[in-house]
């Protein structure tokens, strides 16, 4: 990522003299990139032209070298000011004109230096540490009275996403949603990324976690075995879900049904509607999912695979949960906080068959995380994009077909 950037202005008779062309060539030849902003070409020969150029470079040194090289040709660094901060007036209350974040990489200027904002996420504020060396995105509710919060827009800059080097489906960074789009190449690209992630994860490299947020339709539709296999093979490293996915997964293990339907027979089993309640009750009785798996009560499935593989599971409760299972976080603010703690390190996100968990997870992710949103209902990926997670690739597809195909491409025997 070309994280280092500076804006310069260039004015005068820069078009016919080819000075603009020279400056742009210099930037590229030296290994930087640029965006032209506010290009104004003089309407007459006498009228000067002017432009702003945003220059990006992979390192501070390279950026400085580029600036040094282009300054003699009239490029002057735009005068920039430090960001302004104000103390939070009370716990959980931001200063009135707080800066609201996007999920794009963001920097603030403090004491003349640009500083990356850690844990960037959309719709948060930016808190600056007392010493002024650390800037971090913070949710409104987590703010404490007196915290220094960035206000206004001065001294804040948002860095547009660079087109990734990989020329795959994520390279387009667009969330066109259509049931008519072919699925195979998207799944193949997701699989390629997952293979890379597994390698990187094994080498303990950063941003190598694959996060899956899923809904119970995964179980109903028949995607349980495929997802279990993906977890067992080390392709998935974090699971976000609700009470239902876990309950039906374990119901399937204990009773062979999902919400009362025989998964193999394909018809309602007598008193099958009680199965998930009995499942939840047994888990509550034994103390939790982990105990159920380690005791041998739960033998197979998604939850068993997560426990065995050490994959952290965040279960967030919703309003009509049965039970809920032990471990389900019923306070949504606490659930949000728990999810947020696992976001740093995520390098790929799969949001599968859940409106609530997909949108909630998607909106917690920085724009730099490649994301695929799979749902049989096109409104889900559309909603996610409408809520700002534009980087998510939408795939209108049944959850089981997606997971089975993904697992097949990744080598699951069929």
């Amino acid at each position, binding site marked *: 990522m070309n994280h280092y950037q500076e804006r310069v202005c260039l004015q005068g*008779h820069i078009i016919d003299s080819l000075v603009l062309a020279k400056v742009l060539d210099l930037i590229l030849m030296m290994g930087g990139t640029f965006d032209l902003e506010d290009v104004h070409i003089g309407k007459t020969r006498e009228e*000067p032209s002017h432009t702003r150029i945003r220059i990006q470079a992979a390192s501070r040194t390279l950026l400085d070298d580029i600036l040094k090289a282009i300054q*003699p040709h009239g490029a002057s660094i735009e005068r920039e000011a430090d960001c302004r901060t104000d103390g939070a007036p009370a716990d959980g209350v931001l200063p009135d004109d707080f800066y609201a974040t996007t999920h794009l990489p963001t920097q603030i200027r403090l004491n003349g230096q640009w500083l990356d904002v850690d844990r960037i996420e959309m719709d948060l504020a930016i808190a600056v540490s007392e010493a002024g060396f650390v800037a971090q995105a913070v949710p409104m509710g987590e703010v404490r009275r007196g915290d220094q919060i960035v206000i206004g827009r001065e001294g804040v800059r948002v860095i547009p996403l660079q087109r990734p080097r990989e020329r795959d489906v994520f390279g387009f960074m667009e969330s066109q949603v259509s049931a008519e789009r072919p699925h195979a190449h998207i799944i193949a690209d997701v699989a390629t990324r997952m293979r890379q992630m597994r390698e990187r994860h094994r080498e303990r490299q950063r941003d190598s976690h694959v996060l899956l947020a899923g809904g119970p339709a995964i179980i109903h539709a028949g995607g349980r075995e495929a997802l279990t296999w993906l977890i067992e093979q080390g392709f998935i490293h974090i699971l976000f879900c609700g009470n239902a996915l876990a309950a039906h997964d374990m119901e399937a293990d204990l009773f062979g049904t999902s919400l009362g339907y025989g998964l193999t027979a394909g018809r309602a089993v007598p008193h099958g509607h009680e199965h998930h309640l009995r499942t939840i009750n047994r888990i509550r009785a034994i103390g939790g999912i982990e105990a159920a798996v380690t005791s041998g009560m739960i033998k197979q499935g998604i939850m068993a695979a997560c426990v065995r593989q050490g994959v952290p599971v965040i279960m967030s409760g919703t309003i009509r949960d049965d039970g809920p299972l032990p471990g389900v976080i019923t306070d949504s603010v606490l659930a949000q906080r728990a999810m947020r703690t696992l976001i740093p390190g995520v390098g790929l996100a799969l949001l599968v068959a859940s409106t609530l968990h997909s949108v909630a997870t998607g909106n917690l992710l920085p724009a730099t995380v490649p994301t695929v949103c799979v749902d049989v209902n096109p409104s889900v990926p559309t909603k996610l994009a409408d809520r700002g997670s534009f980087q998510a690739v939408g795939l209108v597809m049944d959850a089981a077909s997606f997971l089975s195909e993904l697992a097949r491409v990744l080598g699951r025997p069929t």
Partner: protein
Amino acid sequence: MSRLLVCPPEFFGIEYEINPWMRLANRVDHGRAMRQWHELMRILEKDVGVVLERMTPIPGLPDLVFTANAGIVVGRTAVVSRFRYPERQPEETHFEDWFRGQGYDVVTVEHELYFEGAGDLLGFPEYWFGGYRQRSDFHVFPVLSERFHREIIPLELVDSRFYHLDTCLCPLSGGELLYFPAAFDRYGQAAIAERIPDKLRLAVPEDEALLFACNAVNVGKHVVLPTGCPTTQAWLRMRGYETHQVQLDEFMKSGGSAKCLTLALD
């Protein structure tokens, strides 16, 4: 009647080295320099028919003789130079005083910018060229362009031997141009070629460029240029100019020739 500002070389000499031509060891023959300068003045006054305004030379300012670097004059306004090298900065007040004494409106550029007058800003009536990088700063051109409502095409000077634009580029009254292409990068060369058609342009050969063929004084159909530039001279004649040769090798020891020794006043 054209008027030119000149300054007698009473105190001319090599007292410092601020361009590749200057060598302290290379002593100026004072008598010879005086004779060459007076010959140039004679040609300008008698053959070309210009009016000469003579500045008073100042001891300790050997380069005051190069009045092209006093500033630029546009109508009744004079923009006084701000020299890059401290050695020449004391000249500024003398030029400024002279302009004020003659009743010009005197304009100065911002303190932190360098601008070396008609040495780096010259052109045609409709547009000008501005030489930058060696002496003048790029940034003065947008300012002067706005002040005088003139297009100024900045040209980077890439060869330190041609440290002022007037050492390698000479616009002529008929729309022609003498220039030494290698003193510019490919952008500058392309910008020049874009403006001036092939047949109006003479790419001066290197040997003549190094004699400062481009440092010529053009007034109407007269061109005064250093001796030893037959190709340039022939081309000028072919274009209908009357050429006048003058030996100025004593001044070349300092990196200056005919044009550097004059400043067009109107």
